[in-house]
């Protein structure tokens, strides 16, 4: 039995996790919160090593060192633009670890008659852990654009999915009645299949919501493993993440004006026919950097709408210089940050903070949106879906219902784009064809430098 002091230590770690989540919800305390969480985790590990009879100490420490090295390397090497897929991978391996733990526990249980709740928890952990692992890998592939970001649906999808669920339930019952390694491995395979199926029909722009959902799933598997291993800390930590993660998933979905069910299964209703866009050959108005520089030079009020494309092109620094110059010339410039700009809610704030854009210039959507009416120029850099009026005008569009920034209300709209290719959601943007819209084609960084040079020439 675990000694009392160790139980108290685990309790302290659990409190650390609660405080960490609380602190992570406010910008002032967030960083401290994360460190408190890390301290709790380290404390828990130290206690485990001290009180448990652990054989094979050397290989285990080596394994921890290897995992730590991979994790740290990944976390430091990753570009901030690619951070969502890294979080997805981290989450996936956690789910995989939980599934493996459950399989091993089953092998140990096999010795004698096992309590029924233990077997149910085992089956649950194996299935959901595998869902989380495989689902996260698919989200990674989608975000990294190693596979199509469009929703993938095939005929008979609901039938296959239903059969998969039935099989998962059937083999879980089988595992409870007759515990065997074979059932466990079959369950893991079915879980993996279900995980892939769960993510396939989700469109690229919605993938972050799924990461959050899978994160909650992994939390629940950790809670179930806590029950299996009779470890209260795992139960508490896993449940906290499971419930907080579920709520967070709903909050994120709300920020996009969508329901979670709609995000997961919307594509099945065939609602996203608009996703099958071919590039239209309707006329657009395009201009060179010199023309846009003149437009900007005489604007009093400019609102920048930054998007993922800006960060990918690494044009944030040049953009900041441009904004500085405009401000010197007396213009009033702000950045309009859509809650889901970038690839995840809040992602754009991270990306711009990295480029040292002053925090005060970053305006949240509710604050800035009414000001587009007074804006002389809305400069949309590498964004698309967040200013797409289809979200309001076209029921059935994948982004229908998502609150958008009304850049179309500005007197002039300038789009900096690489091509006419649609945004991440894969739908065409009507705003591109409006008479007030001017397109400035080219790589964001390159074009931004030219624009800056032209504007400097006008200033002298």
């Amino acid at each position, binding site marked *: 039995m675990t000694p009392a002091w160790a139980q108290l230590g685990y309790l302290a770690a659990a409190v650390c996790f609660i405080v960490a989540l609380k602190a992570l919800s406010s910008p002032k305390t967030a960083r401290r919160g994360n460190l408190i969480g890390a301290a709790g985790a380290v404390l828990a590990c130290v206690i485990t090593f001290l009180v448990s009879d652990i054989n094979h100490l050397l290989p285990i420490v080596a394994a921890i060192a290897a995992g730590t090295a991979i994790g740290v390397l*990944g976390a430091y090497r990753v570009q901030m633009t690619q951070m969502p897929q890294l979080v997805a991978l981290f989450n996936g391996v956690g789910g995989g670890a939980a599934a493996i733990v459950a399989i091993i526990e089953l092998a140990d249980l096999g010795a004698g008659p096992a309590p029924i709740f233990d077997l149910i928890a085992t089956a649950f952990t194996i299935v959901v852990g595998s869902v989380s692992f495989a689902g996260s890998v698919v989200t990674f592939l989608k975000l990294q654009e190693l596979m199509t970001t469009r929703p993938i649906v095939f005929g008979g999808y609901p039938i296959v999915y239903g059969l998969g669920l039935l099989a998962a339930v059937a083999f879980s019952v089988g595992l409870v009645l007759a515990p065997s390694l074979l059932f466990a491995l079959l369950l893991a395979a079915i879980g993996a299949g279900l995980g892939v199926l769960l993510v396939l029909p989700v469109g690229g722009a919605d993938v972050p919501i799924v990461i959050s959902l899978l994160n909650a799933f992994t939390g629940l598997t950790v809670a179930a493993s806590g029950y299996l291993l009779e470890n209260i800390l795992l139960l508490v930590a896993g449940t906290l993440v499971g419930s907080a993660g579920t709520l967070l998933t709903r909050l994120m979905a709300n920020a996009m004006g969508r329901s979670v069910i709609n995000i997961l299964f919307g594509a099945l209703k065939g609602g996203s026919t608009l996703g099958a866009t071919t590039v239209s050959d309707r006329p657009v108005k395009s201009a060179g950097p010199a023309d846009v520089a003149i437009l900007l030079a005489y604007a009093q009020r400019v609102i920048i709408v930054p998007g993922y494309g800006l960060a990918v092109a690494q044009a944030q620094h040049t953009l900041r210089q441009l904004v500085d110059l405009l401000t010197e010339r007396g213009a009033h410039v702000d950045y309009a940050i859509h809650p889901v700009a970038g690839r995840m809610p809040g992602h754009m704030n991270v990306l711009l903070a990295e480029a040292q854009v002053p925090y005060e210039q970053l305006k949240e959507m509710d604050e800035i949106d009414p000001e587009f009416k007074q804006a002389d120029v809305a400069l949309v850099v590498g964004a698309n879906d967040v200013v797409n009026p289809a979200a309001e005008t076209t029921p059935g569009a994948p982004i229908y219902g998502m609150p958008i920034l009304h850049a179309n209300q500005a007197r002039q709209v300038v789009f900096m784009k690489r091509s006419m290719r649609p945004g991440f959601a894969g739908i065409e943007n009507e705003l591109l064809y409006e008479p007030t819209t001017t397109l400035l084609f080219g790589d964001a960084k390159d074009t931004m430098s030219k624009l800056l040079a032209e504007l400097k020439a006008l200033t002298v």
Partner: protein
Amino acid sequence: MSTEPIIWLTIFVLSIFVGVEVISKVSSTLHTPLMSGANAIHGVILIGAVLVAGTAQSTPILVLGLIAVILASINMVGGFVVTDRMLIMFSRPHRALQKQGRQELEQ
């Protein structure tokens, strides 16, 4: 010691409410770091992985357990580090700025 399922259920249900309460007032700006931080917390499955690997009776089980240990460490350590990297940019913009400036000079 036999486990009392009802006690575990009690802890489970109370934890659900705590989890919901503590993050109910998060601003959308912090959704991403919060998700990443929560993700790191479930990396504490590492202690489960260590426990099963440490009691492994056969080589295949040990190998499987060690794989779980590696995966869980990646989840936990990587999760906290990447969350910290995100949050540095939020909490102390000026210090982050200086740090980055220094790095650029060094390069």
